[in-house]
């Protein structure tokens, strides 16, 4: 398999942001890779740097090209999309306008029928269709996450990066979101999933990395990580306790 994304010795050292010290990882085309780790380990920083939102040093290669100096919007145009932890929706615009803007790059590059994908998004998230005329700012937490996902999907991502997609959501909604992630994987979208919810993440992922205080401390297949005593101890704590009981 080909590496779609290769991050090599990435460093971010930037004012208030948690630093990142020479982090390296790979995402193969069509696979789901997860990065787990505690709060403040630099997971969001990692995604921000890959997206070009934060200045960084080191190499980020995506689809065979070095991304240094490529602005965020050009990365989006190449199919590199981020669903951020804070969702970053356009609260004063309608749900449908949020989705339409998701396809902004495609329309700008002359793709005339980009808006046809709205139907597919609504088929995936019927709730969003019910609320299409409502302002995004009035949605519930789960709906906001669905809208953020839908907006990213409107950009036709080749590599979708999700930052804590289950954070603050009800268990039922988390299950829905993970169903969708599995669906997207079957549809051939590569996914880089950053999670504190290690159990859910390792279930859906092919490979995983553990990021602690800005450094990758462990890596391996999802099954290997799930069986690793240190991972069980620190991130699957509940499972370890119940297994021991």
């Amino acid at each position: 398999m080909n590496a779609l994304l290769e991050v090599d010795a990435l460093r971010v050292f930037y004012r208030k942001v948690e630093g990142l010290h020479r982090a390296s990882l790979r995402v193969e085309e069509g696979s789901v890779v997860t990065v787990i780790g505690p709060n403040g380990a630099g997971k969001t920083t990692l995604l921000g740097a890959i997206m070009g939102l934060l200045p960084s040093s080191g190499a980020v290669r995506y689809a065979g090209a070095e991304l240094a100096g490529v602005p965020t919007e050009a990365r989006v145009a190449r199919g590199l999309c981020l669903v951020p932890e804070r969702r970053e929706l356009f609260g004063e615009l309608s749900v449908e306008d949020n989705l339409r803007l998701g396809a902004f790059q495609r329309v700008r590059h002359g793709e005339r029928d980009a808006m046809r994908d709205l139907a597919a998004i609504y088929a995936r998230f019927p709730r969003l269709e019910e609320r299409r005329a409502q302002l995004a700012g009035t949605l519930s937490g789960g709906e906001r996450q669905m809208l953020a996902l839908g907006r990213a999907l409107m950009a036709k991502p080749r590599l979708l990066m999700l930052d804590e997609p289950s954070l603050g959501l009800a268990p039922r909604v988390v299950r829905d979101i993970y169903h969708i992630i599995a669906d997207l994987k079957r549809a051939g979208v590569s996914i880089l999933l950053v999670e504190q919810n290690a159990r859910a993440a390792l279930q859906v992922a092919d490979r995983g990395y553990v990021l602690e205080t800005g450094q990758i401390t462990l890596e391996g297949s999802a099954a290997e990580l799930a069986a690793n005593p240190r991972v069980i101890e620190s991130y699957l704590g509940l499972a370890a306790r119940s297994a021991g009981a």
Partner: protein
Amino acid sequence: MNLDTVLWLVQDGISNGAIYALLALALLLVFAVTRVIFVPQGEFIAYAALSLTMLQAGQLPGTVYVLVGGGLLAAAYEIAAALRARAGARLPRVLAFYVLLPAAIAVLAWWAAPRKFDLWVQALIVLGLVVPLGPILYRIAYQPLANASVVVLFIVSMAVHYALTGLGLLFFGGEGLRSAAFSDAQFKLGVVNVTAQSVLVVLASVLVMLALWLFFTRSLYGKALRATAVNRVGARLVGIPAELSGSLSFLLAAFIGAVSGVLVAPIATIYYDTGFLIGLKGFVGAILGGMASYPLAALGALAVGLLESFSSFWASAFKETIVFTAIIPVLVWRSLTSRHVEDEEE
């Protein structure tokens, strides 16, 4: 003070207020999208009004030099940036927009000036001369500092304002000019004489506002501007380039300024530095409207127009004082009721 006078003052107030409302919208738009407090907004008005008057006199307006010179400077920035990023493919578009387009409009103005075309044609030429100045100014003065704080951007605005007024003095001279009216017709509405010119001002303002409203609610680019205004990070994540929205908001601001300038040219004597005061009144309107909502800003600007017209009747020496004093209670009220928002850091 009889009813006639009141109605006459209201008419005057509304037609001035309509122009202030346009300017208030432009200021609000530019601020929301780029965080620039756009002091030089008024310069577009003065440049447009004076260019129109000069075209009527059969002279080539000095705006062409500002346009071509500014375009070349902006192109230089772009070329340097493109070379650094090794993105030579961008160059044809850069040259077309910043060099060829201004040059073509300049040649058109030079050819049309001695021929003294109809006022409407001249107004179109003026729009062609002034509107491209918006994106050019953004490229030269603001885009390189896009991540600077509001205060830094404000200081840049002051500098741009002084530069443009200075150039205005150089190219238009210190004399006040007034253009011919689009129509000298008057008609009676009840007891009051309504001039066709003031009807035109109000109609044109309403039309421009309607067009802006359609642009912001119907077109993807209009929505992209609103999206940038509500959430800058979100806008980057869907791939809306900050330079594009900045440039577009300045284009709209220049368009609004140019239309306002064409509209006021026949009703007021315009000097090279008059624009500042007119723009400032639009700003007062925007503040009265809370610097947040477009309809409130338009209403606030209308109130400024009426206040100005009545105070010029009662206490003409104090009319500016009264208008600018009106913001103090609003500011006090706002600072008491609204949460203090820290200047955003990026």
